[in-house]
């Protein structure tokens, strides 16, 4: 192995270290910083207390997403605390000179959806945001990860973050995906294999021909859920799919600057002799439409499988947490989920609310009606996704099916805004977390792909989407 051989992750990380002191975390320069209303107010307060400005305002972009209603966005937010938080973001952005895509703006949306679609997310960048799903941006071949509010303050104040360099993991998937299997199934499958903490301490690179064949939207879904196996982040080497997606986007380099950038981006590959700390391989043909049955994203299975029994657990120490989880979900060990009635279907979130996701759903539901026992919410990831969906007539498909198409925001992914699943109710959700109470107190979440969610919306129960294809 040549001493110079590096992984893409190492090339980007090492290229951004402003100061490295033995034993200390690295001071890493941050190219792009996204902020939203929930994790930024205390950071701005910190700047005020210290009497300092934002280091470089052009490198931070803001939007309101977590705490916004998805109905009547033109009206003042009803709930006082939510309204105050969104107004605080507005005040802070104005005072410190930061671009804000506020409610009503044609670029507003979920922070991890708008960054890529505006061309703010580019290969080779370091990107952070006070949100764990910042890993989404890794799909472009960037080092992107979620941070806490103290770190948001660090970035605002110095455009740097102090961070220990994570270890590297390569996850390679080869082969052709089966019928009805999409990128959400790939990532749910991987997490079910390595557990919700299987990649903690690592930065993941996804590789293999199955990954190469995916669109940018599908790659973002995979990188988005890297955090659900504990990874610091996950990235995919950029290629023509990446460059074609970026070309012509609002803030991306244009003309000759774009061509020059592509030449630089093409060098973002892992060197032949580079070593990863861990390498894992999976076969795409083993992946089926997936669903989770428990209260962490690692508790997933093929939709046709049955829930494991306590006796089948790999580690006996997990037995109590496993039992507690099934009790919360109202499910029984050793049973299947096919045919289990659901009450809500949520299609949205930074995981699956891009235009391609809405197209997948429309493809299944076109000309059909939702089952009478379910309420179906479709929440586009951004104003631009919403506009595109309307232009393509997807709104009509959803309307005719009895789905509710609402305005952009994080919505029922996190039980923070008005959109919540009631106690005890089951929701099949295209989001990223099935934690206890995640979608509202005592709510019960089945994570699945947009295709599987669409199928469940039609039948009113957990369904193998392959029956519809």
């Amino acid at each position, binding site marked *: 192995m040549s001493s110079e051989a590096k992984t893409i992750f190492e090339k980007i990380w090492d290229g951004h270290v402003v*100061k490295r002191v033995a034993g200390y975390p690295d001071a890493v320069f941050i190219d792009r910083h996204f902020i939203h209303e929930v994790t930024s107010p205390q950071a701005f307060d910190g700047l005020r207390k210290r009497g300092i400005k934002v280091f470089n305002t052009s490198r931070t972009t803001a939007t309101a997403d977590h705490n916004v209603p998805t109905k009547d966005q033109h009206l003042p937010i009803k709930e006082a605390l939510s309204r105050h938080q969104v107004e605080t973001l507005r005040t802070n952005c104005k005072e410190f000179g930061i671009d804000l895509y506020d409610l009503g703006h044609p670029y507003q949306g979920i922070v991890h959806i708008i960054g890529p679609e505006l061309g703010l997310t580019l290969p080779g960048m370091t990107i952070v945001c006070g949100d*764990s799903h910042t890993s989404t941006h890794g799909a472009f071949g960037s080092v992107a990860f979620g941070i*806490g509010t103290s770190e948001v*303050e660090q970035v605002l104040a110095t455009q*740097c973050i102090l961070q220990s360099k994570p270890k590297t993991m390569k996850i390679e998937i080869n082969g052709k995906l089966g019928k009805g299997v999409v990128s959400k199934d790939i990532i749910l499958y991987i997490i079910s294999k390595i557990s919700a903490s299987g990649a903690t301490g690592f930065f993941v690179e996804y590789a293999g021909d199955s990954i190469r064949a995916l669109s940018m939207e599908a790659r973002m879904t995979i990188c988005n859920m890297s955090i659900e196996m504990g990874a610091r982040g996950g990235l995919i080497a950029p290629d023509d799919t990446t460059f074609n997606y970026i070309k012509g986007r609002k803030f991306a380099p244009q003309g000759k600057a774009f061509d020059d950038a592509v030449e630089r981006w093409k060098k973002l590959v892992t060197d032949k002799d580079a070593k990863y700390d861990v390498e894992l391989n999976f076969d795409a043909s083993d992946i089926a439409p997936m669903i989770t049955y428990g209260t962490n994203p690692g508790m997933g299975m093929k939709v046709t499988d049955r829930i494991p029994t306590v006796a089948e657990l790999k580690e006996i120490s997990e037995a109590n947490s496993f039992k507690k989880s099934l009790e919360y979900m109202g499910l029984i060990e050793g049973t299947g989920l096919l045919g289990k009635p659901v009450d809500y279907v949520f299609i949205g979130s930074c995981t699956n609310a891009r235009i391609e996701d809405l197209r997948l759903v429309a493809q299944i539901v076109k000309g059909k009606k939702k089952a009478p026992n379910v309420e179906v919410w479709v929440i586009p990831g951004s104003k631009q996704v919403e506009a595109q969906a309307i232009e393509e007539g997807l709104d009509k498909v959803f309307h005719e099916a009895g789905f509710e198409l609402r305005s952009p925001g994080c919505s029922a992914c996190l039980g*923070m805004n008005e959109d919540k699943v009631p106690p005890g109710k089951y929701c099949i959700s295209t989001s990223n977390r099935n*934690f206890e109470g995640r979608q509202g107190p005592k709510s019960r979440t089945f994570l699945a792909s947009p295709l599987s969610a669409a199928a469940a919306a039609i039948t009113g129960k957990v369904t193998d989407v392959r029956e519809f294809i």
Partner: protein
Amino acid sequence: MTMSKDKFTTLKTSAVPIASENIDTDQIIPARFLKATTREGFGDNLFRDWRYDGNNEPIKDFVLNDPTYTGKVLVGGKNFGCGSSREHAAWAIYDYGFRVVVSSFFADIFKNNALNNGLLPVVVSDAFLKKLFDAIGKDPKTQVDVDLPEQTISFNNEKEKFEINIYKKECLINGYDDIDYLLSLTKEIGEYDVAHS
């Protein structure tokens, strides 16, 4: 300007056990309580949905509602703090009165958030963690002794060394925060910024 934070050197106290694995930050502080724009007061809603029922009545058998268990050390199962990056989770634990969290494994972002707020995450072996849970189960007044300069945690006759980044250790002992250090680098950072824009 240096922001002074609470300093941490040693602590000897009883401990509060939550033996579940994968305690995610949505359990520590549910999203609907993240609407405040200050850092204070989150302790009231620490473990809100494990602590109170739908009518806001305390759930008797949850450990924080059981007066038998007190102390400034919180002991949790493997993969503590997974999920959302919300620093509010660390604020809530600190605001409630804890100064140390012990587990056999922490999620990365939570660990950073804790360290940035004077809350010490102590990683112990699975075996040590089990013995600690057992000891507290037998005697809720079991004293846990945490020594940051020595990097040791002990109770009864059990003792283990724990790892911590030397920089983070200095910060905790002296009450420094990261921004103080980064602000000392603004010249280099500015040069980097110009060279890479």
